[in-house]
């Protein structure tokens, strides 16, 4: 049996589709919705941090999108130069550049799952499942990298020691209190991941009988060949 066929699994006959239309449409529809949410999340912020200090009563904010930073980046960079931290925009340059492509690939993989009627479907869907967690992990690594690699000759190097700002929740750096939380984009991505899980469950329920049938047929075909041989 051709390996590609083993990956994409059995095709659906028209009669079977007409007989159980919703059984097959439901997972496909959910996967399309999840792909749509992922694409939509690109336009929303994934992460926000607010920084409060006595002389910044309105606070400073950084808003991270998949491909860019917004907010008071300039001011924060200005302050960070006193403690020897590199400018924020130097972080995650590769990730930010690749983000549009990655999101596109993820959405395409989810669409591909509609046509993959084998256990491989779970593997194709897994990047979208892991995406929200992967974002936070990557962000944490960058925060840790920036916070622990301060320029030792900076003006405030004696009073601000290397630190790792928490990726979520509250932290303290110098006179600043930081509050970090996820943004609507990340929530959309998480919702997409949840929908993918549900979709996979329905996908399995719909295609497992077909896949088992297909495997049985394949096995017996192999056995027949063996007998003939």
């Amino acid at each position, binding site marked *: 049996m051709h390996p590609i066929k083993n990956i994409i699994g059995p095709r659906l006959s028209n009669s079977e589709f007409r007989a159980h239309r919703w059984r097959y449409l439901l997972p496909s529809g959910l996967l399309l919705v999840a792909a749509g949410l992922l694409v939509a999340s690109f336009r929303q912020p994934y992460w926000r941090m607010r920084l409060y200090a006595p002389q910044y009563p309105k606070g400073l904010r950084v808003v991270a999108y998949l491909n860019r930073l917004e907010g008071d980046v*300039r001011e924060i960079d*200005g302050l960070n130069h006193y403690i020897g931290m590199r400018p924020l925009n130097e972080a995650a340059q590769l990730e930010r550049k690749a983000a549009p492509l990655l999101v596109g690939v993820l959405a395409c993989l989810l669409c591909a799952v509609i046509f993959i009627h084998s256990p491989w479907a779970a593997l194709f869907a897994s990047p979208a499942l892991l995406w929200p967690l992967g974002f936070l992990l990557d962000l944490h690594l960058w925060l840790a990298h920036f916070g622990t690699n301060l320029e030792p000759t900076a003006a405030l190097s004696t009073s601000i020691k290397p630190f790792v700002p928490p990726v979520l929740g509250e932290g303290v750096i110098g006179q600043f209190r930081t509050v970090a939380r996820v943004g609507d984009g990340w929530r959309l991505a998480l919702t997409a991941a949840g929908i993918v899980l549900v979709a996979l469950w329905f996908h399995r329920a719909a295609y497992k009988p077909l896949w088992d049938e297909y495997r049985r047929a394949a096995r017996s075909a192999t056995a027949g060949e063996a007998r003939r041989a």
Partner: protein
Amino acid sequence: MTSVAEQVARERNLTPDDVVAALKTYMPSGRIDEYIMFASGGHSGQVFVIGVPSMRLLKTIAVFTPEPWQGYGFGVGDEILRGGDFESRAIRWADTHHPALSETNGEYDGQYLFIGDKSSSRVAVIDLRDFETKQILKNPVAISDHGGCFVTPNTGYVVEGGQYGTPRGWEYASIEDYQKAYKGYVTFWKFDRERGRIDPARSFCMELPPYWQDLFDAGKFESDGWIFGNSFNTELATGNVDGKSPPFEAGVSQRDNDYLHIINLKKAEQVFQAGKFEKFRDFAVIPLQTSIEEGLLYFTPEPKSPHGVDVAPKGDFIVVGGKLDPHVSVYSMAKIKKAIEAKKWQPDPYGVPVLDYDATLEVQVELGLGPLHTVFDDKGYAYTSLFLDSAIARWTLGGPYQTLHKEPAWTLVKKTNVQYNVGHVCAAEGDTASPDGKYFVSLNKWSIDRFFHPGPLFPQNLQLLDISQPGDKMPVLYDMPLGVGEPHYAQMVKADKLKPWSVYPEIGWDPHAQAVDPTAPKPGQEGVQRDGNQVTVVMTATRSHFTPEHVKVKQGDKVTWRITNVERTEDAIHGFALPLYNINLSLEPGETATFHFEATHAGTFPWYCSEFCSALHLEMMGYLLVEPARAAALDAPHEPPAPGAGS
């Protein structure tokens, strides 16, 4: 808490009224005032910005006088200050009198502020986006003014009435020729709101008899297109010239009446546009005879030597403060128009039609001694300062204002004593089409026993009164000492009508042009460029460094120094102080500044940021090294003399 408050009141000897006054004016930290008052700075040549009801001084806007903190006149701002010079004569002080906020339909619009200088007859334009002076103009015809600035209801014109009579352009003429050679003036400065500048080419001056014009005001609604002014020397007194004539103070007060000037500005504008004017120092002047022939100017008698002339909110009445007469005289615009139509007039010695007094007067209201200036509220009351009585008179308006109050029309309701010698008065939006009432400020000339007096020059006293309650309740709430004098008029605007910037809109902003300067230094472009002996420094400033930090020039170089503050954070201001060369800039976030100097003195000059900007503020400095001319010459490569150069 109550017992603690009572204990404090007892210990500080405060009456219940004192406690109420304190509660009405106290601002907890972080609370912002409801009104903003713009008070003339008098001799300081500046304008004070004061929060009401707290009476806290928020800013002194540098206008006619250099002011180092704002970096005005110490490297930049000179081009604006020079607008007020005459020929090569620099004038670096002023006696600012009457601020005027720009108006739309007779209401403050919070966009611009104008202020006049009595001492040299000048006007200035302040942009209220950044509270900075943008333009100063020297009046080419008049040398002293008092009737400025007042604006027409849509700020088409800024009115500047002259004061002491002089020949045209204050040229020399014997005082014996006073009657013929001397004139009075009123100037109508055309304001171009789009450009935020007065356009002298579209402005004009009207000559008046040398009657010593005093205050002016612009009509609105019923009196729209009309301008009113007072006079106080229809006697044509020329002072004690021969040892027999009375001194001015008596000489100008001989006749029972002076003249209220009634000017048809709408018609005057048409006459100007029709080209019926003479040019003097390239400025349009409508001669007196033209004004008479064209029907631009009328007089009506007013009790002698009055002071303020103030138009009521609906534009229907004109209130003249008697000064030497205990009344305010209220004229009716409807009656004035009727008298003009009926030609009920007699010519004065110059041929100006003098309307019949009784035909124009609505009523006289006796208020007390020394009535000067009048403002209005939302309850149909008028408020007049009584200089000699040292009091504020609250009195009722009649006519359409009658329904707003319970008292009979045109009656004195209450007098509140103020400390002391009140000149101008200011009520919340009290000279607009819809006064707010609520707060009132008495601008007192003397303070005598109100404050610790630092030597014999006493502080001014700006007293806040509560005018929110009708009838006879009008208490003093607060005394604000002002150690800079002497404020004359003030205007109070609702704070939310002002929309000032907190940082300049973009990096590289030129406040003079109110636009981005595309050539302003930007990060990455910094450096020092040389072209012959012309050196250009391209610099940026941010917390806590200038870039570059070294500038080396040769003695005799002509230096152009450009700095942009690249900050975007509110209040992140940098100064730039360069010793000996008399430079100090205030670089507000986004602002770019350019100054020029000749490196006349060799030496080592550490420049620094003169505004405490950050924890590393002291470190924000750099060195200007001016190499002595001789050493520079030794260093320079030997070049053959240019062809044709002298031996």
